[in-house]
């Protein structure tokens, strides 16, 4: 009796284990998401019910915003995008794994340019031509083209932003100074700040490896914007004189001590230093204004934006553009509902929420007055963009991912060992030689 009971128990346990694994496996999206599944099943029977679709993003601080969007769209059109926030470090692998299966997210935040290209090439992105045909009028010209590959639009914009230099009002007020008009004046001011014990440039790698490319990009395109484009597309080399010149300028700035200590963090330390007048500049995309405000800085009172002058005439009128796209997984089972959601997303209600919660402007529904009232610094920046018609793609997504990842590591080394600049360039050039043929580019 006892013995039989024992074997029975052990067998049951083992079988239970195997079954629980198998059962959980058969459930899409994992066993911990039964609500999602149920909701979409019911929706098939009763169309009146809210359809739920999956939305992936990589910023936990945006979770509240996405939830608010989900509620709004559920109310407006009966489609709720249920957000999941993943950590940046595992986000890409997670999305890639899911995209190849029927668990593919219906909406996910990605990067444009070459970072979208690899997914597109593998046939994992849905064609959003029909959505764009309906809502294209809501976006400024050029956006659709920027989010298309071979003429096929694969995304709607989430954030459209420019790369500028945030500066400390406290520093400029204290010394009663004007923003520099020429590159030389800019360098003189940095030298002056150094003499006063103020850090000139906040571009550090304390907790973030990716930020190392920023100053390289900012210097290079100010030397020659067309060259920057050629370099990004594999038509110029990392050992060309333009790049070497950029590296030399960067090296000099580093060696003269214009940079903040490298272990400072851009989320906590730099905002505090800007506010207290210990740091003059921090180059970032305009989304950094949101981080500054979160850390208690007030636009136009504590910080403003500045666009450094070009180094040579060939760098005139150029600015870096960053678009974060929202893409749809081709293998997603809810693609139709997702397209419905995208049409809603391009309209006024969604644009308003996006503006109120995140201060993002990506379509034409937000008026100039609104921007001026909500974020005068951003309004000022957008105003200045008239003088910068030449929009360049950010380094992060402008060139093949393998080159970017390698270069970003090399630039990290540059920040702590500026004297090694030529070795680092040779290394990147080597990598570029290795990578470009995979993209059918003769290099």
């Amino acid at each position, binding site marked *: 009796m006892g*013995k039989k009971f024992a*074997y029975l128990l052990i067998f049951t346990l083992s079988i239970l284990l195997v079954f629980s694994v198998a059962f959980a496996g058969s459930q899409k999206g994992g066993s911990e998401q039964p609500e999602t599944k149920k909701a979409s099943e019911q929706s098939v029977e009763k169309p009146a019910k809210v359809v739920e679709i999956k939305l992936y993003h990589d910023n936990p601080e945006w979770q509240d915003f996405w939830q608010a969007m989900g509620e709004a769209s559920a109310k407006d059109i009966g489609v709720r995008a249920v957000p999941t926030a993943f950590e940046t470090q595992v986000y890409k*692998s997670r999305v890639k794994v899911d995209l190849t299966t029927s668990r593919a997210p219906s909406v996910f935040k990605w990067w444009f340019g070459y970072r979208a290209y690899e997914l597109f090439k593998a046939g*994992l992105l849905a064609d959003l031509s029909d959505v764009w045909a309906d809502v294209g009028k809501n976006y400024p010209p050029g956006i659709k083209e920027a989010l298309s590959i071979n003429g096929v639009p694969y995304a709607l914009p989430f954030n459209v932003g420019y790369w500028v230099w945030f500066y400390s009002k406290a520093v400029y007020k204290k010394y009663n100074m004007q923003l520099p008009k020429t590159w030389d004046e800019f360098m003189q001011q940095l030298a002056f700040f150094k003499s006063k014990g103020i850090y000139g440039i906040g571009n550090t790698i304390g907790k973030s490896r990716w930020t190392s490319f920023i100053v390289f990009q900012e210097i290079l395109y100010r030397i020659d914007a067309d060259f920057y484009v050629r370099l990004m597309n594999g038509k110029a080399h990392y050992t060309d004189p333009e790049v070497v010149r950029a590296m030399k300028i960067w090296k000099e700035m580093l060696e003269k001590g214009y940079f903040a200590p*490298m*272990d400072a963090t851009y989320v906590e330390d730099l905002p505090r230093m800007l506010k207290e007048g210990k740091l003059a500049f921090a180059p970032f995309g305009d989304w950094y204004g949101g981080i500054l405000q979160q850390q208690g800085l007030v636009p136009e009172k504590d910080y403003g934006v500045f666009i450094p002058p070009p180094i040579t005439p060939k760098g005139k009128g150029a600015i870096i553009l960053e678009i974060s796209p929202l893409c749809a997984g081709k293998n997603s089972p809810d693609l139709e509902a997702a397209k419905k959601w995208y049409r809603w997303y391009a309209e006024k209600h969604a644009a308003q929420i996006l503006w109120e919660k995140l201060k993002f402007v990506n379509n034409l529904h937000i008026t100039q007055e609104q921007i001026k009232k909500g974020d005068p610094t951003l309004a000022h920046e957008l105003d200045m963009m008239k003088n910068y018609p030449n929009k360049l793609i950010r380094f992060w997504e402008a060139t093949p991912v393998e080159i970017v*990842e390698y270069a970003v590591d090399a*630039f990290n*080394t540059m*920040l702590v060992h500026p004297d090694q600049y030529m070795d680092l360039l040779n290394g990147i050039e080597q990598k570029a030689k290795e990578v470009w043929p995979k993209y059918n580019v003769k290099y």
Partner: protein
Amino acid sequence: MSAAAFVTVNQGIGKMKFNVKKVKGGVDTVFLIPAIIFVLIAELVPVIYTTYLGFMQWDIINPPKFVGISNYIKVFTQPELLNALKNTLYWVVGTLIFAVGFALFVAVLLSNVKGRVIFKSIFFIPSTLSPTVAAIVWRRTLSSQMGALPSLLALFGINMHPVLTNTHINTFVMIGVWTWQFFGINLILFLVGLETIPREPVEAAMIDGANERQAFLYIIVPLLRPIMLLVIANSLINTIRMFDIPWVMIQGGPGRASETLAISLYRESFLLFKMGLGSAIAVVISILTLIASYRYIMILGRKRG
């Protein structure tokens, strides 16, 4: 278990009335099944799969492709990975010197000192924290922006430069953090070992004219061997796969400067999507661990009874 309890259990069994029935030996294996299932799922099948992936090229979104041993060639030729190999070696040697050797030295110091319990407790406290917490705590302590140590030194007019982004010293600083954390456990283990050493042979040797150093080297060290083997093997196994501290403190940076093999594995597979290369690194880590702990495992796995 006390003798009384033992008798009670025996009596309890005596009261049970069952027919003696022979069960075939094979059936007893049933007791092993749950353990085997779990170990198969979590460890043995993954080991085989990783070994297989080590010979493939795979980026998750496209199907895997066989590439022979080219991943292994990369592990030993790609400069970043060679650097990781070198850092791992630093970790192994550095922890042997500080977390093990120095702990033995302090244990000997402590063994004839009053107030031993207090010192022992102080050194043991960090062992109760996880490596993640230790890394967070030390990052805060060393940060040039509102860090505890630089702020303290600034009071004395000393300007401390950032240490974690200094590629010449950051690995050694982090070895120091590891030492801070695991020194205490090693110390207590050595103390336990020292306490079990009988006094007579040491005293006899001293009477025969040996000095303290000789007594230590020729009598205490050999008697400490079992504990030494344990501590050293543990140290080797843990540092060859070092991940937590360099990851949480500086993500193996700046760039890839302080990467260990375990961090390279993580970066190559989950950030750069070279799953095959990552698997090859895992196999290399396994082989190194096997070599380093061969003796220890043989002792653990040997038949007893």
